[in-house]
């Protein structure tokens, strides 16, 4: 029997920070959207806003354009700071394809 030992070529991943904590329930919470304005986001995200508002009494869903939109800006520190400053409890980001 021939044995061949070799390096795993996929390398390692360094996890530096945890994912955001989840909210326990959406009722009465403040939710925002961060949109790249691509891939029908201009239709889908407003639809989601309507669904959230219908399904969760007391929820506050910010307008789709509450934060800067577009691939060029949504990943910036400035946008992240605006999201934090808005006091949202949760954020939905879209769309990717």
């Amino acid at each position, binding site marked *: *029997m*021939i*044995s061949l*030992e*070799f390096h795993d070529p*996929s*390398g*390692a991943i360094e*996890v530096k920070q945890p994912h955001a904590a989840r909210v326990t329930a959406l009722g009465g919470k403040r939710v925002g959207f961060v949109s790249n304005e691509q891939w029908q986001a201009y239709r889908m995200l407003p639809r*989601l806003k309507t669904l959230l508002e219908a399904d969760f009494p007391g929820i506050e869903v910010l307008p789709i354009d509450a934060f800067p939109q577009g691939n060029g800006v949504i990943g910036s520190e400035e946008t992240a700071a605006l999201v934090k400053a808005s006091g949202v409890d949760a954020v939905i980001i879209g769309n990717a394809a």
Partner: protein
Amino acid sequence: MTNAVAGLGLAPDAAMVTFPIEMFLPGSDISPLDARRQEFYDGLTRWRSAFDRGGDGEAPMLRVEGASAEDALARFNHQMLANRWGDGLPLWPPTRERVDWILRGAAQPRARTLGAFPPRGGVTTVESCAIALAMAGGRPEYLPVLVAAVEAFLDPESGSEALQAASGSAFPVVIVNGPIGARIRLNAGFGCLGPDPQRPAGASIGRALRLLQQNLGGALPGIGTMANYGGLRHTNLVFAEDEASLPAGWAPHGTERHGFAPGTSSISLAFANGATNIRRRGAKKETPEEDALQGMHRMADFMRVPNMAGLAGYEHGTPGIVMIPGVVAQTMAGLGWTKASMREFFWEYSRIPLADLRRAGGPAWIEIDTSKVARESLAVDPWPITAQPDNFLIVVAGGGHPTNSYWLQGYSPGVVGRPVPLPADFERLIAEAERDLGPAAP
């Protein structure tokens, strides 16, 4: 998407709701959102990452066993494909012995971290490069060029983070200047973009870079990279400028674009997503001046297309790379042309009339571009395909034959250069290459 999440330093998973691509097209039916809205709600409330460790740790050694050496090799290659680590062609096993051999070409410590390979964020070390180069059939003397290319690739200015995942099928182009090209048998002449058993370095280095893009960077077709076609990705493009054929007064590419002193071993990395042969030579009784001018127009006419590929590098990158063989460079220089005057010509004659641009929907892409310079360029008619003539890259390479030139359509936010430091016993590696491969072809 999980690649991008991991690349941000988060665990490599995320709360996502995915739909078939049809829902993301204009005029689509978006009612499936209603039916699956609970998945969105769960993502905001109940979802938990499946990864709760601080990291995956060091890459382990793996093992296969076979009834014979041939059987073990076959099982190794099967495992590479089953784990999505291969490229469909046979691979060398990156055994400890082979990787250690490749690492004799390292000018830096094997554990030195070069960065996180985007978008997945795989920790990239000199050893990672050696593993990929071993798999790609490389040799130790190739490692300095690969490491320099990886450093350039990981530089945010290259734009690699977006291009790794983007649908536009970008592939890296590595142009090598200085003496190292000839020393490691990198092709600068006939067939320099293709396979060549006399000068095999480019194929191995480019293949190793591709394996890193996939295995560390996560650019797996249809999963980690949305590249529709993925052309030229088996080996990318790695070649040397034919500096011996540069006319007097023409600087090497590495000097012109990056300021490296002539004679410096260096690499220059850009991205392209197209490769086209252009018949440059005239066919009848043209004068030398007519032959040169018609060839220049034929090239510029090919660049004058509103397909928006060059927009990615409008301000700081490149609309593309022009390759001309040395014999043509010598003729052009004899007629008074320089690389600079050729760039001016291409810039002027590749402009697109705004009416044509509007007909093709080009302004919409320009208006949403992140570059203010690009957005403001819409005021210019005819529209220049790049912000300035210097953005065109002109490289003297290709076989000594005057008929054709080559155009690598740029999709390149930046063009990044790096010097190529060599290990102390590099000359010994070259001597061993002579022993193993025979004398280098002239």
